[in-house]
């Protein structure tokens, strides 16, 4: 009698960010022994947020960025708003870990390189998708139909929200379902003025506080926000959700978690006899040592591009074009939000009103165009929302004033105008030609083929850009701006919104999709992919909450299969 070899772990999760943290927590809490592999460095919650609460006078150059060094080592990452001397240790070093950047198809791959991943750096905006989003592909025929609808995910949104803590205001909108909310943050006086004017002069839009994974009261042992401002510099009090502050500690508390940083996954080993993944091949980024670990269940949560890179690099006789790629669609239908456009308006209202504390969210105008029940006829498909920022200008805007002496000093030290900015986030259509691939001759320092991108905005995205700007003009006029500035007249390079999605999409048909309705690979029963790569369309709302909900839902299904002996 042959004794079956026991796997090293019950489940292996690749990636420790937004999705990986959730996979780890849920799997550990179901009693599985879990190994989390993270390619980035080991940073400790509360200990290694090097920039937290540091005044700019502590920073090299007092906050001016080291230009030559960033150009040399962070050529891509420096485009990210959160990249600075207080956060660089969380970001990927582009020189050490490059990808094939093609200036003709400039796709910006913004990535973290630390335990916690981009959950440490994210904008913390959380919005549920609705059936307007899940039915978008089947309605207009772009992309393939989603294999799930809102009702499949709703209870998982609730499950996630109750754990992470989401502050916001319930609106009862079918196009933007409400979350389980903690009390919302307040509006600025100017926002209240603007909200009142919009209600009268642009009543087709709603204005609400941004829904944000920042605590307005103590929640599950994490403290309420102390309103210091730059969340991306890290939060020792765990007041914004990150896997470091929330899901990884929950996973660790079970005693079932093993987490290995500096562990670059080279590929997954497919066993043609069992039809399952048997092992993961890992390279230690510090000493280049190679190891392999076995498990019954594998969760790929390495981010959209990271996960698909691993699958594309996991070639075998069964899967010569990449793991679980019998459909040939792996790497295709890459999406990102149409971003970088909108308007900033200057307002002379509420000049005698100021503020206390730095509110870690802006305002939000939910999608109001092309909603199916409005029967509109626009020259574009899908829609967009605006994320807004309300701020009082200061010396940073007017430091280039003419003049000298006490008068200059006095004018620079005082608050200036109010600015209300509306930044559009538009829904990108899924297209086969927008894709990522492995470069055939360029490898990284681990010998792993580098990722390359082919991506172009098309006619619909250009039309969305125009609409986002013309509607913003209309809204600022209705809101009473005395003057508006453009945030951009063309979409930012793809990737800049840091909402990259697709490349291993879900679908009911195994001939045109990689994953089924449970994020399980059609071709490989013990492989689940639950980060942004699973997305079949892009919606216009921020995607992280949906990744977390889909991850928890996929774990529930996978553990059921495992318990029933089906894996």
């Amino acid at each position, binding site marked *: 009698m042959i004794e079956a070899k026991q796997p*090293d*772990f019950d489940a292996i999760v690749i990636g420790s960010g937004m999705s990986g943290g959730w996979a780890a927590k849920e799997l550990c809490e179901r009693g599985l*022994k879990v190994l989390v592999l993270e390619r980035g*460095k*080991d*940073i400790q919650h509360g200990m*290694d947020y*090097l920039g*937290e*609460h*540091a005044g*700019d*006078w*502590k*920073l090299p*150059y*007092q*906050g*001016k*960025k*080291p230009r030559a060094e960033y150009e040399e080592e962070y050529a891509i990452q420096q485009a990210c*708003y959160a990249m600075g*001397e207080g956060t660089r*240790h969380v970001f990927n*070093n582009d*020189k050490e870990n490059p990808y094939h950047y093609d200036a003709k198809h400039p796709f910006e791959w913004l990535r973290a390189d630390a335990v916690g991943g981009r959950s440490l750096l994210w904008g913390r905006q959380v919005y549920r998708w609705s059936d307007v989003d899940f039915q978008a592909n089947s309605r207009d025929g772009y992309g393939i139909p989603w294999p799930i609808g809102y009702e499949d995910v709703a209870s998982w949104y609730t499950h996630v929200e109750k754990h992470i803590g989401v502050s916001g205001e319930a609106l009862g909108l079918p196009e933007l379902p409400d979350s389980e909310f903690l009390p919302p943050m307040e509006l*600025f*006086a100017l926002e209240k003025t603007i909200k009142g004017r919009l209600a009268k002069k642009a009543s087709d839009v709603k204005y609400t506080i941004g829904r944000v994974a920042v605590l307005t009261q103590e929640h599950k042992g994490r403290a309420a926000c*102390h*309103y*210091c*401002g730059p969340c991306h510099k890290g939060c020792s009090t765990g007041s914004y959700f990150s896997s470091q502050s929330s899901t990884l500690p929950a996973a660790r508390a079970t005693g079932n978690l*093993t987490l*290995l*940083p500096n562990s670059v996954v080279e590929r997954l080993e497919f066993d043609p006899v069992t039809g399952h993944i048997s092992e993961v091949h890992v390279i*230690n980024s*510090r*000493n280049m*040592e190679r*190891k392999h670990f076995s498990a019954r269940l594998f969760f790929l949560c390495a981010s959209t591009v990271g996960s698909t890179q691993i699958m594309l690099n996991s070639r075998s006789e069964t899967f010569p074009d990449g793991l679980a790629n019998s459909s040939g669609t792996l790497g295709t239908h890459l999406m990102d939000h149409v971003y970088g456009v909108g308007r900033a308006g200057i307002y002379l209202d*509420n*000049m005698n*009103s*100021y*503020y*206390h*504390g*730095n*509110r870690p969210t802006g305002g939000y105008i939910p999608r109001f165009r092309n909603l199916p029940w409005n029967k509109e006829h626009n020259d574009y498909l899908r829609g967009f929302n605006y994320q807004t920022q309300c701020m009082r200008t200061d*010396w*940073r*805007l007017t*430091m*280039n004033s003419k003049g*000298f*002496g006490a008068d*200059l*000093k006095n004018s620079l*030290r*005082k608050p200036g105008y109010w600015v209300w900015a509306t930044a559009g986030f538009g829904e990108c259509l899924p297209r086969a030609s927008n894709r990522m691939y492995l470069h055939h001759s360029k490898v990284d320092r681990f010998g792993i083929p580098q990722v390359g991108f082919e991506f172009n905005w098309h006619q619909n995205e250009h039309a969305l850009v125009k609409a986002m700007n013309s509607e913003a003009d209309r809204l600022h006029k209705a809101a009473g701006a005395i003057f508006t500035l453009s945030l951009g007249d063309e979409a930012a390079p793809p990737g800049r919104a840091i909402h990259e999605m697709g490349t291993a999409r879900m679908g009911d048909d195994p001939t045109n999709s990689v994953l089924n309705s449970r994020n399980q690979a059609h071709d490989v029963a013990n492989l689940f992919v639950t980060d942004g790569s699973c997305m079949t369309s892009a919606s216009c709302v921020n995607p992280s909450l949906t990744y977390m909900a889909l991850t928890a839902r996929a774990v529930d299904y996978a553990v059921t299969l495992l318990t029933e002996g089906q894996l």
Partner: protein
Amino acid sequence: MNRRQFLECSSIFFCGLTASQLGVSLTAEQRVHLTTADNYLNRDVSFFDSQQRSDIVAIADAIIPRTETPGAVDARVPRYVELMVSNWLTDPERKLFMAGLDQLQQRSRQRGDSFSELGITEQLALLEQLESEAGDHSWYDFGNIRREYLSDAPFICQIKELTVWGFFSSEVGATQVLRYKHMPMYFDGDVPLDSQESAWYSGAIE
């Protein structure tokens, strides 16, 4: 390898480099908590000669003088300028800066003394002359807060940017001239503003 063997060896295999947990790409200096770091202004620099140093002090003082609150010299802005010119400007920007400073020094001598020894009226006249010559350079465009540093900005714009930035992002400028709380503890979006009150310091990097 089974799970128990793995756990036994993993601490050696994966955690052997505790002294540099934060990665090969960071220097020792970049691995410290910035709140405990020395202020940037305490770094060593020796780039200007003594006359240049005196003139930079006089220029910074003319741009942001001490009033009822500290001025640029109190906030050690001249040192910031020297550090930035020495370490942060590119070679062409540094040449532009030094040529501009040289020209200002020549014009001062034509008026009979070094810039630092001239009276404030004459100093301001010279600076205003430079500003008028810089005319409508794009550096003065309204609202270009989010721009990169403009490499072709004339000397007067360079020195003004370094002075204003260095002043308000210094500890003295941010906490004694502007207002600063590193943990405000609550948010209130509607607080009465006195017309003489300073803005909050809200960071050079957003």
